[in-house]
């Protein structure tokens, strides 16, 4: 590790240094050292172990495992449901963000706090509770079943559970943007004769769009990896309602560690792709904000 010396000022042509600006504060090596060791032990080593195991059999074996029919079916279920859940989250999340950012009404603070409930409620609890509500004789299911709408133990149930854990991401991404949007802009548009639809599509949506996309991407990511709240309501029928996360657990229970590692590798690739997309979106938002100011 490079050493910082006193109040040295960085000059062109100076030796490369790990620290880019010196600081009089103590504890740099201790805090960064601890951070790196902890990060390596808790996150990096297990991550590398999994990726190496996924790759151990070679690319052919990996490809064969992650494209087996049952695995492909689980991707269809997981990604399809996650996309539907992200879309639902976007719609309802946008509605809630709008109502919370713009209107005042009694009980708003409680409503605002409640949005975080899916973050706080253990996923297993959400899973069994949603199942109880939407099962054949449940409080909601009993009104849907006579109309031929089956939620519990169908893909619809998976979408429902994924939306439950996903929509707060949209609210929390969009809400601050709408709070910062000056109503004067809409008022100006209104005074120039724009109707509500025009104001929504020409002013509010363009401003909120990157945040809406970020929130939806986060909701999608969470839904794609979700396990606890989904497995109770899904029915878990192979090829039909079996999600990829459950397939990993099944492989582990069958002592097929190589298979589990391969599928986990595929899921990690998806996670990192979404993470990259979200980071790019954040960068886009910051650039836009910068331009507006």
């Amino acid at each position, binding site marked *: 590790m490079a050493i910082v010396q006193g109040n040295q000022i960085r000059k062109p042509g100076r030796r490369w240094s790990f620290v880019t600006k010196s600081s009089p504060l103590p504890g740099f090596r201790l805090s*960064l050292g*601890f951070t790196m060791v902890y990060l390596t032990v*808790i996150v990096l080593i297990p991550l590398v172990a999994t990726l190496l195991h996924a790759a151990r059999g070679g690319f052919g074996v990996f490809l064969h495992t992650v494209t087996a029919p049952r695995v492909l079916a689980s991707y269809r279920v997981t990604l399809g449901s996650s996309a539907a859940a992200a879309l639902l989250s976007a719609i309802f999340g946008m509605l809630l963000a709008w109502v919370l950012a713009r209107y005042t009404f009694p009980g708003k603070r409680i409503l605002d706090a409640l949005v975080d409930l899916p973050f706080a409620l*253990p996923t297993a*609890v959400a899973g069994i509770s949603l199942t109880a509500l939407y099962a054949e004789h449940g409080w909601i299911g009993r009104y849907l079943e006579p109309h031929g709408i089956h939620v519990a133990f169908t893909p619809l149930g998976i979408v429902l559970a994924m939306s439950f854990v996903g929509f707060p*991401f949209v609210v929390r991404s969009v809400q601050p943007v709408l709070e910062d949007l000056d109503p004067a802009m809409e008022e100006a548009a209104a005074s120039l004769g724009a109707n509500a639809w025009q104001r929504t599509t020409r002013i509010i949506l363009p401003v909120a769009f990157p945040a809406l996309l970020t929130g939806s991407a986060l909701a999608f990511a969470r839904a794609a*990896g979700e396990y606890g709240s989904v497995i109770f309501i899904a029915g878990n029928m192979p090829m039909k309602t079996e999600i990829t996360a459950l397939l990993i657990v099944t492989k582990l229970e069958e002592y097929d560690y190589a298979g589990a590692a391969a599928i986990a590798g595929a899921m990690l690739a998806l996670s990192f792709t979404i*993470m990259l997309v979200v980071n790019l979106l954040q960068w886009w938002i910051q650039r836009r904000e910068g331009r507006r100011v």
Partner: protein
Amino acid sequence: MSGRSNVPSSAILQPTVPQRMGRVALILLALLFLGGFLILPVVAVFAQALSQGWKLYFESIRQEDVLSALRLTALVASIAVPLNVVFGIAASWAITRFDFHGKSLLITLIDIPLSVSPVVAGMMYVEVFGLHGWLGPWLQEHNLHVIFAVPGIVLATVFVTFPFVARELIPFMQAQGSDEETAAVVLGANGWSVFWRVTLPNIKWALLYGTILAASRSIGEFGAVSVVSGHIRGQTTTLPLEVEMLYNEYSFTAAFAAASLLTLAAIVTLVIKKMIEVTSGVHPVPEEEEVES
């Protein structure tokens, strides 16, 4: 929120009757959504738990298995949360008080656990500590148990709550700047007294906020713990796992009784969070939202 100007609005800007009706309709729609989608599942947990009366409810939660699951959950949280608090402080100190190469990479790495599926997280530890994992044979030789034992559950919990404290502290300490600490150092205070007397009092609310989030998640974690636990009743079963086991045994009342304890914990979390936001004036970044790097 405060974007509305104080200039008296002209007649055009007054909400018209249809506008006001639209406003009320949107608020009602939001209330309906939250009521049906968030409050109903919570009510259902308690309704199911109490469906056989209070006596059976208390008997259910006083079963030895439930009590030992509760003890294990408390034990795991009491190890995992302090570890991540120390990490969060160290990481945010290094990141916000010093400038060094690779800082944004470090922030991205800290975020990894948020985008990894809980099931994959659990399985990553199986890859390191499991019988077929890197350290498996060595652990076996020394008769040490990590997977299907308490240490594995602690590790999985540490992983899923890894970024929570750091993510609260990094933007907060960044916004605060290091002027006060620099002044203390210039006046001759040593590192630890700067930390205890200057930094900690300044960051205490944000720190508490992150700690609450981490505690809540570590109490409720299901997927990651489920993979490494082995589901041994009375030994490696945390409360969320106990809920699952009771539910799969068709002991629905008992499952929901155990779930009601977790639901109460979630409600308490939301109340404390809201109280911190209101009383301290801290309105930290909502959890799991991307940190601006």
